[in-house]
């Protein structure tokens, strides 16, 4: 009963109406830039979170792997980019590649082991990987700065042209550009044959195996791509904050981004972006009004979404539009 309208809504969206995500992001960003020119710090953090949630969407929404340790790749990317800026070069874009490569490497190394399991075992293993990395980062103080954080990061101008400024304009557009490129690449990925294979694996690994898809290899590839994107998000945060702390590996970050994704709706890229936006705005507003109890609001919202809009909040307008069309 629940599934039918959603599936057809998707089909309808694919066939008749297709707006380009890059345009929406750009418009939204420009609008935010004009309306809230003094909140660029907050907006930039939200953009970075969007990139991280998008990477989680690839493995959770498309490949069906629920991970509670996604911060492992984010943190690795952040430390890699921070160390890269200190020891190699202050060029930000090269730093992003370093962060992405480190995230991909962490995902590949852990994915080879993790992806042989699923369900609870996978969940626990993903948590354990992030916990071990966090402990290592805390321990190797001479390299990472330990619990005080990795300091001494100074970034050069982006592409040699745009200096990071005090109001954070450069940081904002830089993060926005990265988000655009990531969305475009992920859009291409999920619409490719590889993306279709992932959806197939999510629905039935057995069937995919039967038709000759190397399931394990596809999953590892997806995990590595997601790791690279998460690493890029971590690198961005390291460059913009100019400090990396061991909290980049924290379990609560992993759990939070999963909540963001589900709020928006997994399995579609807009869902990841919308969910992050909703979560960030609620946290921002509720924390300003009553920081002690904003957790209550998120808890209620989560239950509401899980029960009444299991496809995420993005499915609500789509369903409404469909309903309106059906009645007219």
């Amino acid at each position: 009963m629940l599934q039918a309208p959603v599936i057809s809504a998707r089909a309808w969206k694919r066939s008749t109406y297709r707006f380009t995500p890059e345009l929406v992001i750009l418009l939204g960003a420009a609008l935010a830039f004009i309306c809230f020119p003094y909140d660029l710090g907050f907006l930039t953090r939200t953009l970075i979170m969007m990139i991280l949630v998008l990477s989680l969407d690839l493995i959770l929404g498309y490949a069906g792997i629920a991970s509670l340790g996604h911060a492992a790749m984010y943190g690795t990317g952040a430390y890699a980019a921070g160390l890269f800026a200190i020891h190699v070069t202050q060029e930000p874009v090269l730093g992003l590649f370093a962060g992405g490569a480190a995230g991909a490497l962490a995902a590949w190394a852990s994915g080879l082991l993790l992806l042989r399991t699923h369900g609870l075992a996978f969940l626990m293993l993903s948590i354990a990987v992030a916990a071990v990395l966090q402990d290592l980062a805390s321990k190797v103080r001479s390299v990472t700065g330990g619990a005080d954080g990795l300091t001494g990061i100074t970034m050069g101008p982006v592409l040699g042209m745009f200096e990071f400024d005090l109001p954070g304009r450069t940081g904002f557009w830089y993060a926005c550009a990265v988000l655009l490129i990531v969305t475009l690449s992920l859009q291409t990925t999920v619409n490719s044959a590889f993306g279709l294979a992932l959806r197939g694996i999510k629905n039935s690994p057995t069937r995919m195996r039967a038709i000759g898809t190397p399931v394990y290899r596809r999953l590892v590839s997806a995990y590595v791509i997601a790791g690279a994107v998460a690493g890029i998000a971590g690198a961005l945060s390291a460059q913009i904050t100019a400090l990396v702390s061991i909290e980049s590996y924290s379990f609560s970050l992993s759990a939070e981004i999963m909540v963001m994704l589900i709020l928006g709706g997994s399995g579609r890229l807009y869902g990841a972006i919308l969910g992050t936006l909703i979560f960030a705005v609620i946290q921002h507003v509720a924390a300003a009004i009553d920081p002690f109890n904003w957790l209550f609001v998120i808890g209620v919202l989560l239950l509401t979404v899980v029960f009444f809009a299991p496809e995420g909040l993005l499915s609500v307008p789509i369903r409404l539009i469909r309903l309106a069309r059906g009645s007219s």
Partner: protein
Amino acid sequence: MKPLQMASVIAGLLAALVTCPSSAETIRVGIIATFSGPNAIWGKQFKEATEVYVAEHGDSINGDKIEFIYKDVAGPNADASKAAAQDLLVRDQVKYLGGFDFTPNALAVAPLITQAKVPAVIFNAATSSINKQSNFFLRTSFTLWQVSVPMANWAAANGAKTVITAVTDYNPGVDAETAFASAFEKKGGKIVSKIRMPLQTTDFAPFMQRIKDSGSDGVFAFLPAGPATFAFTKAYNEGGLKQAGIRFYGTGETDETTIDALGDQATGLVTAYHYSDAHESDLNTAFTAKLKQMFPSSRANLASVGAYDGVHLIYQMIKAAKGDGVKAIEAAKGLAWESPRGPVKLDPETRHVVQNVYIRRVEKDPQGRLINKEFDTVQQVPDLGFNP
């Protein structure tokens, strides 16, 4: 409304806008701290002490109104801290920053405050090196070196020949361990062993057994406030260390927000620290009474006094320099004042507070409340960790 009337109203408003700042300004102060999550106690203590100070001293200086803006960063979160500082500086045009419970949160704003020339007063974060990252950092709390060295000296002077250290394995713990060990060895004592306990430890029984087997005269401990401290002191008592005559030396373990939870078992624990809410002075009595009156369920602790003195420092800087950060820092250097913790002075070189460190023992006061009773004083200790 006729167009002419409209124009005159607008002109009037514009005139008001233009003339307003010259007569009286609003000087905004941004407080960045943790108000939600497991560490929300820091933000709560900061905010309450700030409000007590404002209630006592008014919210205007020379006709300028002082306005505090609180920003939640939900725990040790460098990204959030930097973003909050950025938005405070750009949107709210704050002239001063305060707060900073965790070291990474303070370190993250260092480049910003240097660039914007805005003084940032640290109410807590206790790593010595923070103040080296920007000339605009000032600190009214303490550093781990500042309290651990007096503890070591006192232990050495009071019969301890051998001590084992047990600290949580993270930067503050290592700081405390290094400070204690170096001072204790300088006094001719011997550190039998240095135990570093994992951050996630819940069961301290194995460590108690190791401490007991070491046969040393005492144990110096440092753990993060909250559950870890609670479980450690409980294990210290139940592991039979007290009966075995192994003395407990600590710093902030018996702070006023955990001491009630520790209960009677805490009685007798000796610590060296810069503040006890039972400090005997008129100013402290007035401070704690006012806090009790405004927030009946609260007790003053290190975070309260750090914020209270931090706000005092900000008020003094505003008096001297209004919103001019560079002038304000110059005015703050060398400033001396009477704090609820005793006499304090801001070291011109380190911009860190020079203060008395008290040796205290947990006792019951006449009302049956557990307190840190000060019984010995080390006069005017600077930040010993700035150039160790």
